[in-house]
């Protein structure tokens, strides 16, 4: 169904905050994800066990919590926080305290309480916003000592909750290495000590999560972005060699064009509904248009849009996503296992967390050339498998 237009609901665009089956985590989870990526940092969730368990199960990192109970809230949670921080302070290089909703409105002067400890406070309660807001807030508060003149480049946008995070990190390091460049600090998956000698240049695998000062040389998410970032790297770092990376990009481009042509000889371009974070959604949209002349029937962003961008909307309600899919009847849906659970005759390919219901063991990227190849491979295989299913 290619002619049905998507009609925005009353709920969207009118600042109605009510949300049915929210599919995106809160700011606290984002902040914890950013901070827990650094070895040597003890992340303390200043809140109840309910606020602790979700990030703990999502991130599979050692996290700490004040595990507040009602009495702490009535009589003050400061002593409780001090107890927990004191126990941890000898074992870690840095303590990072992240506040949940209730401590954030209690009005205790946590900053003063933490004086005397090597601790940072991240005020990132759930009601502040979504995952990215918390992630950027926390990453932006990290004590980084930037040094110019290092022949290294930081990698931004690595997120422990992202099923593509580990693959993106490896892919970014590989591409830099092919140019003769060493990676600097990996934001946010590195050791805390590494922050003390960070280069002032960065590239990103997911610009939604960029938060660090310094000079950004671009992202490697998408083919156009990769080309321009490699040129920027070559200009910024004397002695780097862009030719191997440029050759690789040209070869990958040619390969994808070839298989896409073959697909289009037999099939119409797919109509696609995309649901992901802003940068991943834009990557998917531009890539599918470029190689498959795909019709993008809807492009939805989990994260708040950084600016007014035509053709993409902020959607976090699964109920709304279901309506959109029913109204637009796409051939292919890109999203998370939430979208995959919805009924309909569509092919599905995973683009955003969570991706449950299937086993993922390898480090698959979405950024870089390998990420681009993997993405197109998934999309084409899912589309062809679906056509076979519909045929029989």
């Amino acid at each position, binding site marked *: 169904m290619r002619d049905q237009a998507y009609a925005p609901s009353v*709920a969207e665009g009118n600042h*109605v*905050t*009510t*949300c*049915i*089956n*929210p*599919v*995106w*985590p*809160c*700011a*606290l*989870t984002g902040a914890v994800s950013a901070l827990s990526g650094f070895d040597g940092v003890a992340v303390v969730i200043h809140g*109840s*066990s*309910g*606020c602790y*368990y*979700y990030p703990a*199960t999502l991130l599979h990192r050692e996290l700490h919590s004040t*595990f*507040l*109970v*009602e*009495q*702490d*809230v009535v*009589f*003050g949670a400061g*002593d*409780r926080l*001090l*107890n927990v921080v004191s126990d941890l302070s000898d074992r870690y290089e840095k303590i990072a305290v992240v506040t949940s*909703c*209730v401590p954030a*409105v*209690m009005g205790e002067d946590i900053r003063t309480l933490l004086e005397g400890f090597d601790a940072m406070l991240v005020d990132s*309660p*759930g*009601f*502040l916003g*979504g995952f990215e807001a918390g992630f950027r807030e926390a990453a932006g508060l990290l004590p980084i000592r930037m040094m110019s003149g290092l022949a290294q480049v930081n990698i931004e946008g690595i997120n422990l909750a992202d099923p593509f995070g580990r693959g993106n990190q490896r892919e970014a390091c590989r591409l830099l290495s092919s140019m003769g460049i060493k990676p600097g600090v990996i934001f946010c998956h590195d050791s805390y000590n590494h922050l003390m000698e960070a280069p002032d240049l960065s590239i990103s695998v997911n610009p939604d999560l960029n938060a660090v000062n310094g000079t950004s040389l671009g992202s490697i998410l998408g083919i156009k972005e990769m080309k321009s970032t490699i040129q920027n790297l070559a200009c910024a770092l004397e002695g780097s060699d862009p030719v191997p990376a440029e050759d690789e990009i040209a070869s990958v481009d040619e390969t994808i064009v070839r298989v896409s042509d073959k697909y289009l000889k037999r099939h119409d371009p797919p109509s696609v509904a995309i649901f992901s974070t802003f940068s991943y959604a834009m990557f998917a949209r531009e890539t599918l248009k470029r190689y498959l002349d795909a019709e993008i029937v809807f492009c939805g962003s989990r994260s708040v849009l950084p600016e007014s961008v035509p053709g993409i909307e902020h959607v*976090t309600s*699964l*109920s709304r996503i279901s309506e959109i899919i029913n109204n637009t009847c796409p051939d292919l849906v890109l999203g998370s*296992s*939430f979208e995959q*659970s*919805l009924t309909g005759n569509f092919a599905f390919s995973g683009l955003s967390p*969570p991706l*449950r*219901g299937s086993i993922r063991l390898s480090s698959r990227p979405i950024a870089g050339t390998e990420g681009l190849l993997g993405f197109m491979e998934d999309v084409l295989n899912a589309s062809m498998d679906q056509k076979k299913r519909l045929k029989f």
Partner: protein
Amino acid sequence: MSSKTLPLPISRTGGCTLTGALAVTTSVTDSITLIHGPDGCAHHNFSLLHATLLDNGNLRIPNVMSSGLTEDDIIFGGEPSLAQAIAMACDKQPRVIFILSTCITDTIGDDVQGICRNSGVNICYIPTSGFFGGQFDDGFSNSLIAIAKFVKEKNAWQGEIKGERGLRVNLIGEKNLEYEVEQNFLEICRLLALLGISINIRYIHEITTDDLYTLPLADLNILREPSLANVGKILLELFGVPYLDSFPIGLDGTLRFLRDTGRALGISSEQAISREEECQRSMLAEFSNLAGRKVYRTNPVDPNGSSVMAEIMGRIGLCEDEDGDGIPVPVPLPVGTCGIRRMLHRWRRATT
């Protein structure tokens, strides 16, 4: 050290009441559960429930809604957002709307009950209050109680009368997030069938609002575990239905379950017990090659677990030895004879 002591043994790690309550309310399949709080609270729990349902092979998407509180609501009050969310939930035409409060809405003092009372729609308010309301288990049992009171108040059942279709029991408080919840249910059905008894409803596991209204029609309530005794007592007060305090645990415990069920319903259980004894003998014979093996087990979380494990090990002929092979002790303990059989397969693998 803090000079402030905690009142009595409160667990700091018992989870959130919301998760416990949602494990119950989202299992009413034609309902919507509205969480009055920030989206994050709803997402965390929705995501957990969705993952658990997928893991259990259930593709149903739980209906969880959030009033989506933002910083402005926290400052100026969240009641208008709740009223708006209720109106939106009504548009979806659910049979019932369950409303759960969160820790932040209790902190800012929103009158959730007042908004619910004045909304004029089919609402069941469950004052969960996030961690102010206790922990996971409190949310779970309090929601079972609140919904039972809702059923009593509605008194909406217009169908058959009690006893019309023979003896029936309700299963109360199945652990909906448990991986083997369906296997345990099937085991209870098998055992009850030996007595010629059928299930009225699974309170509350994958049922509709109409099913809920038949809650009073059972002749006996069987609780999932003794910690739900308070729920059993309230159901007895509300509907006059007696209860058994647990699913069957252990070999002798399974036979006792048959005896107690028969006694509670005024029927003979001798034949059923005899058949189950034969079933147990046959099952244990499958594992006779484990006899004499040295094994080591951890202490079960359940206080009755040690005696149950000792009973099973004794019947099999396993020898407890600190240097023996480690055998897994399931949490929660296996239900009925079939649950023990599954555990013994795991023990055999661990000692091979």
